[in-house]
Each structure stands twice: as C-alpha cells, then as structure tokens.
C-alpha cells in the first residue's frame, strides 16, 4: 500500500503555511504507518484543535475531530471499546500540555496503548502566536512582546515522570529518525509519547527572529544531539533526541480484560 492510499487527496492543498513543520510530521507518520503495513481501516486518529490537529483532516483513517485539549480523553474511550484498533493522537504543544495537560499525564499514568504525537512548535500557531507552556523563558510571542517569563515543560521528562512506557523525541529536520521513532512508538504496547520539534515560521519564527523555515530547521540540526552523545557531555545545553524510555508494563486494556475475566469466571 503506497502512502497515497492513506491520504484524502481531495483536501489538498493543505492549510499549513509555507515552511510549516507539521507537513513533515505528516510525511514521517505516513511512512511509519506504511512501514508497519497497517491497514487504514485499523487506524483511528483522534485530534483536538490546532494547526497540528488539522493533520487528521488529511488522513484517510477513521478520524475523530474533537475539541481543544481533550483528544486523549476521547481516544481513551475509543481504545477501551475497540482495543484491537491502533490509536494515533497528534497534538500541538498547547493542545497536549496547556489545556490538555491533565489528560496527558493521566493517559501516561494509565499506560493505555495509544500513540501520542506532540508536535511542539512552542507556540499557539492556530490562534495567532500566543506563547504556550512550551515556549520557554526568554522567548517572544504575540502575548509576550517584552519577553516571556513562564518556564517551559520538558515534554520527555513530564511523560516519563507521569508513567509513559515509551518516550522519544525527534525533530522535523531528522525525518529519518522521526519516522523510525514513530514506527517504534506505534508498535510499542502501552502509552507512547513522541515529541517532535516542529517549526512555526509564521509566529514562533517571526517573533523570535528565527529566520526562515530552513533556518529554524538548521537550529534543530545544530542544537540537538543523540542521547548521551559526546557533544551533549561537552555542551549540556544541547537538546537530546532519541528514545528515552522503552519499557514493558501492564497495558491498561489488557489489564481491564483480565479483571473482567477474573470477575466473571465460571459465569
């Protein structure tokens, strides 16, 4: 099955700005799904609201278009009732960790077999470039013209601490790695979080003098490094990429099934 089979061509051209990183994530995701050989009717994509969440409009899976911040809660409902389906939940940094932060940590904690993709452009792109909980201290935004003083989350650290059993990070520059980690995340049994650093040249770039989309991607190249690399030891300010957590733990739907079996034994 070619990647074209997975998309709804009638909705193209897409609405993302020229240079937006979200299209690269779409590309990587398509290849990951194709590499695994998943049938499109076995995939449910659940999205909230945001430029990132629009990804679900372009994919010919079952798609559930919900509300800002709540995609994981909806997805949990889908997975609990049809555990055999593959659940993919693309979210923006705002969607996942601002308004949806509560659902995010609880989904991690439960270890339900869902793949959460955080397309982190460090800004609320869709609503016009306001700062998000991922913008970080010292950045600029339409709501922080003189500098943002809010510290940011580390998505990987939050996901790990909350109990996610697969946690990875990549960037839109590292398309091969991005595809590989998405593939591994989808295959992982349990709750997987993949943070993808994505560029929003329109707002984050413009407000932070980030230059063009390719300039921003160049920063992803130079300011990130594989986990525990020599470069990281020399320059601790570099952001690590790769798989941070990959462990086995009881998956929620399976545990639920066991408990039902136990409770109804002999009946």
């Amino acid at each position, binding site marked *: 099955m070619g990647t074209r089979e997975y998309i709804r061509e009638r909705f193209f051209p897409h609405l993302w700005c020229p240079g937006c990183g979200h299209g690269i994530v779409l590309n990587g995701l398509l290849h990951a799904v194709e590499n695994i050989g998943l049938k499109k009717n076995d995939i449910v994509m659940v999205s909230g*609201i945001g430029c990132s969440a629009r990804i679900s409009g372009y994919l010919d899976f079952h798609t559930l*278009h919900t*509300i*800002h*911040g709540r995609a994981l809660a909806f997805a949990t409902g889908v997975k609990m009732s049809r555990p055999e389906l593959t659940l993919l939940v693309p979210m923006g940094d705002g969607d996942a960790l*601002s*308004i949806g*932060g509560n659902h995010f940590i609880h989904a991690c904690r439960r270890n339900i077999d869902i793949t959460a993709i955080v397309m982190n452009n460090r800004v*609320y792109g*869709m*609503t*016009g470039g*306001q*700062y998000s*909980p991922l913008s970080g201290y010292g950045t600029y935004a*339409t*709501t*922080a*013209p*003189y500098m943002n003083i*809010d510290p940011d989350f580390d998505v990987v650290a939050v996901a790990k601490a909350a109990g996610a059993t697969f946690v990875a990070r990549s960037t839109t520059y590292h398309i091969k790695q991005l595809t590989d980690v998405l593939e591994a995340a989808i295959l992982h049994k349990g709750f997987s979080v993949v943070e993808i650093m994505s560029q929003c040249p329109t707002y984050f770039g413009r407000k932070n003098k980030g230059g063009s989309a390719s300039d921003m991607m160049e920063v992803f190249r130079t300011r990130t490094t594989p986990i525990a690399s020599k470069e990281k030891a020399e320059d601790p300010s570099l952001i690590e990429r790769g798989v941070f957590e990959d462990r086995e733990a009881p998956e929620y739907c399976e545990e639920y099934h066991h408990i039902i079996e136990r409770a109804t034994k002999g009946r």
Partner: protein
Amino acid sequence: MGKRIGMEVAVAASEAAALCRFDMAAVYPITPQSHIAEHLSDIVNDGRVDASFMTVESEHSALSAVIGASAAGARVITATSSQGLMYMNEIMPIASGMRLPIVMLVANRAVSSPINIWNDHSDIMPMRDTGWVTFFSDNGQEAVDMVIQAYKVAERRDVMLPVNVMMDGFQLTHMVEPLIMPDQEEVDRFLPPLVPYATLHPDKPVSMGTLGMPDIFTESQKSKDVALINSISVIREVWKEWEELFGRKYEPVQTYLTEDADVALVTMGSMGETAEVAVDELRKEGIKAGLIKIKLWRPFPFEDLKNAVKGIRVLAVTDRAVSFGGPGGPVCSEIRSALYDEPSRPVIVNYIIGLGGRDVQVADFMTMVKKAAAGKLSEPYEYYGVRG
C-alpha cells in the same frame, strides 16, 4: 469629549477596558477573541494600565484566576468565545454566587460539532442561567460603551454581579468601525475606583463560596435571582447617566419605527443593523415594518418588551441559536412566555437564522417579514434558508 477614530472592534473593546483601569486580566486565546487577548497583553506590557496579565492554560483557569483576583479586591477582565465559554460554564455560577463584579467580553461564535469558527449565539445561550448580567452589542460603539458600563453596573453595591458583554465574532470583533473612544478623564468621572465589598484580606477574614446546606441553599439562590432581577433598575440608571455624559442612549429594548408598525422583527446583536436597513426598504414598499432590538438578555427586560410590542400584529423573532428539541430559539421562547399573560398579544413567528456564520442579508430580512405578515409560517419555527 472623546475622539472619533476608526478601530478594529476587538482592539477598541480592549481599549475600553484599559480606560476602566483594570488591575488584572487572565485570558486563553481562541478565535475570534484572540485579538482581545493580544491587545490586553499589549496594554499591560506597555504599562498603560497598572495591571498584571496572566496567560493561563485554559479558559477554566482564566475565569478561576479572575475570580481569585476579584475576591482579593482587583478590578478584573477576561474574554473568550465558543468552546472557551463552554469550558467556563462550570465556573460562571461560582462568579455570580460569590457576587464578584467580574467583566467578561465574549466574541460570540458557534460551538462544535461540527467545528465552526464563525458567528452565532450558541455559545452564550447555554450560559443563560448562570446568573450573569448579559449585554448584547450591535456595533463597535456599543461594544466599547458597554464594556465601561459593565464595570459600573457590576460594582454597584446593589448589584455585585458579574457582567458579560456580547460582541458578534468577526462580524464585530474583526471589523474596523468608526467610533468615538471616550477619553480617560470622562471615564474616570463616570467610573469611580473599585471599592470592593468583601475582600480576602488577612486583617478581616471572610469565607466565600462555603458549603450551603439544604436549609440555606434555596435562600442563596433566591438572593442571586433577586439581585439579578433588581439590577435592571441600576442598569437603567447607569445608562441614563451614560446618556447625560456621553450623549449616546441605551435601553434594554430598543425600538425602530414600531409606533405604527404592523409587523416587527426582533433581533439581538449585530444583525440588528442589517434588519434596520430591511425595515427602511420595507417601508418604501409600503409595508409597515418595525424593529425591536434586545440589548439586555439578562436580566430579561419583560416590561420593556411588553411596551415595545403594543399594537403590533405580527412579531418575527429571529434566533441565532437553537434550543434543540425545545420550542425553537431561546429568544423567541423567552418572548412567548413574556407575553403569555398579556390580554392581547401579537402573533409570534420564529426564524432560526445566521447559524455558524451563515450570511443574512437585507433581502432575507425582508422575505422573513413578508412571510410572517402573510401568516405563511406553518411550523412552530423555521430554519430560514435551510436546505433539506
């Protein structure tokens, strides 16, 4: 005496809040409110008001944060739209129950599903019973004026209730309109500094929102209801004072050519301006049309409405939201019950119009009036122009 300027209404409404010298703003951005969020942020960042600005992680937190600040004695502002307002729903009765003079700007937008970012009133209608004073603006000038009036009403000791000001998303928020921006001196004269009634302060401890057992809960609800009902006389007073100071007249129900009207349209929000043109056109054709605009949704102006409809044969009430499975649109349902006990009342027809940004033009209002006047509406309410 104020300046005549051209300004985007979202920006102008935020400027009006700045003239009220708010102390604290908490907002979460959402289309089409985002320009308000950004402009409030600019105002605070530029040091034009001595205030703090919080970008919270959701609307739920935005309203919660302004409740906290208001309880601590600050003059506060928040703003939202659509799903954001729905998400505030849980907190809205807390604000009115604690009798906090909060002001909120709402850029009205449809609620999901399906996802729609355009204008209608389906966001505010479910909030009807949360105990807030609710103003509806028709145009940019009214949006500006109502923001300032809102603080005055909210903070009056005989009201002490939150007030929200409706402005239609995009149709108003994103339009550059000519308007008169009052100057600071005038607003200072109109709106005295906030003297909070009960404040969280270590020297004088108070409890707010504490447990209300069955033996007191009903009383608490009645007191909120009575306060809201009684606020209409304060609103009239405040609007009278506004008229004296600024020369612009506000009434809970505003009429246009209704004295000799045979059939009258009823609107709420920016479509009133289009309907006004339709009335002029109908008059040219010899049809005695009139228009009733509702400016105050809560407390509902029962007496004003009864007076406004005197002598009118047919009332064509337009609604920009649906009470699904109910009697039609919420505005019409209100009007029907308001007039039920009247010895003589007009024939009332109900049109559901302009949902999710569907355009309604002068010709549409003319058609609605003609059809209503001819008694051709077979259903209890009609989705005007609907396919299927």
